[in-house]
């Protein structure tokens, strides 16, 4: 098997996780900026985090022979403070041309507040100005449906944003059609306690097709499984899906989307 992990927070994971992913066939890992589980609180802390994502973590991954890419932003969970957000966003142009940066992300909404929406719009404007790909986080649980609709409205109201250059992550059965019907890419996150299980993710693929969609583990500091993507691939195989069908979702689709940024190189798979 070969696959790409298109959304993993490796700064929170161990070297054992890197080794296990490689053994399962991981050919590249992509790490959006996210919430640390606590508020970083200061612009300087975010500056350091951007350095970690663009210097330290790709070096750590390289020790295992794994290409590491990243996305930059201030995450929606810390977007309730627009003053902090504005300063953090002002750092992004300095980092955006680093060799492993693919775009702006994971931006989006968390509790669907006015300040979160304002900060989302600033990120969208920056992505348009710098002609960057966008990776979007949609809210959790009861907030997901409303948040997904607000995010779609914000993206679609910007004249320079092209849907094919935006992936909207953490879709589930009630949001996947909204996203795909508008021409955006969709990401399914495989979590043991929330979001999608492997079985549901394969159901969604069967119902909504394998184009413009990927699966990720979004593994981080919480309850999450770095091996979730290969496990879901095995679930699809057990149902009798062809290897080509599975390969499209776990390998070809991430390449297709992320290759829209020339810094992304099609990885070699063993």
């Amino acid at each position, binding site marked *: 098997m070969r696959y790409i992990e298109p959304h993993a927070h490796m700064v929170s994971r161990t070297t054992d996780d890197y080794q296990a992913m490689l053994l399962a066939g991981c050919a590249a890992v992509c790490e959006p900026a996210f919430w640390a589980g606590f508020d970083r609180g200061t612009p300087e802390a975010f500056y350091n985090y951007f350095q970690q994502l663009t210097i330290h973590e790709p070096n750590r991954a390289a020790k295992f022979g794994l290409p590491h890419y990243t996305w930059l932003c201030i995450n929606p969970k810390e977007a309730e403070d627009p003053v902090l957000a504005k300063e953090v966003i002002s750092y992004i142009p300095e980092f955006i041309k680093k060799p492993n940066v693919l775009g702006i992300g994971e931006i989006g909404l968390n509790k669907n507040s006015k300040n979160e929406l304002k900060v989302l719009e600033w990120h969208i404007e920056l992505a348009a100005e710098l002609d960057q790909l966008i990776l979007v986080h949609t809210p959790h649980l*009861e907030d997901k449906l409303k948040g997904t609709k607000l995010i779609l409205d914000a993206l679609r109201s910007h004249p320079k944003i092209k849907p094919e250059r935006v992936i909207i992550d953490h879709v589930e059965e009630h949001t996947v059609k909204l996203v795909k019907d508008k021409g955006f890419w969709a990401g399914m996150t495989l979590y043991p306690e929330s979001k999608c299980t492997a079985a549901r993710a394969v159901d969604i693929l069967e119902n909504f097709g394998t184009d413009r969609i990927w699966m990720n583990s979004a593994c981080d500091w919480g309850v999450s499984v770095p091996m979730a993507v290969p496990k879901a691939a095995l679930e699809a195989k057990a149902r009798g899906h062809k290897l080509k069908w599975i390969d499209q979702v776990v390998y070809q689709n991430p390449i297709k989307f992320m290759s829209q940024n020339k810094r992304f190189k099609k990885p070699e798979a063993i």
Partner: protein
Amino acid sequence: MSSKKSSGMTREQVLDMYFMDARCKLIDIAAFLDRVERSEGKDDFRIKAFREAITEVTGKKKDKAKRVLLSFSDPSKKPIEEAPGKGACGAWPGEAKS
């Protein structure tokens, strides 16, 4: 698009692969409801939403997973004034009182 698309498996194959797991989860839900009913106190919005969601599971309409998710979702449309915190609890508590 709807759930009419086939997985490519026969009904028997789907049941062979998933019945025991689903049976286990259903018993877990039944035990959870027993536990709630044995406990002291009143129902809150979460367990009310849960009981409502179960009617979607037992109904005859298709797209049951989607219907359950929708039943737990905030149906309002406008952004809220301020985030009350960072977490989500899994069910919509209703409009915040100002």
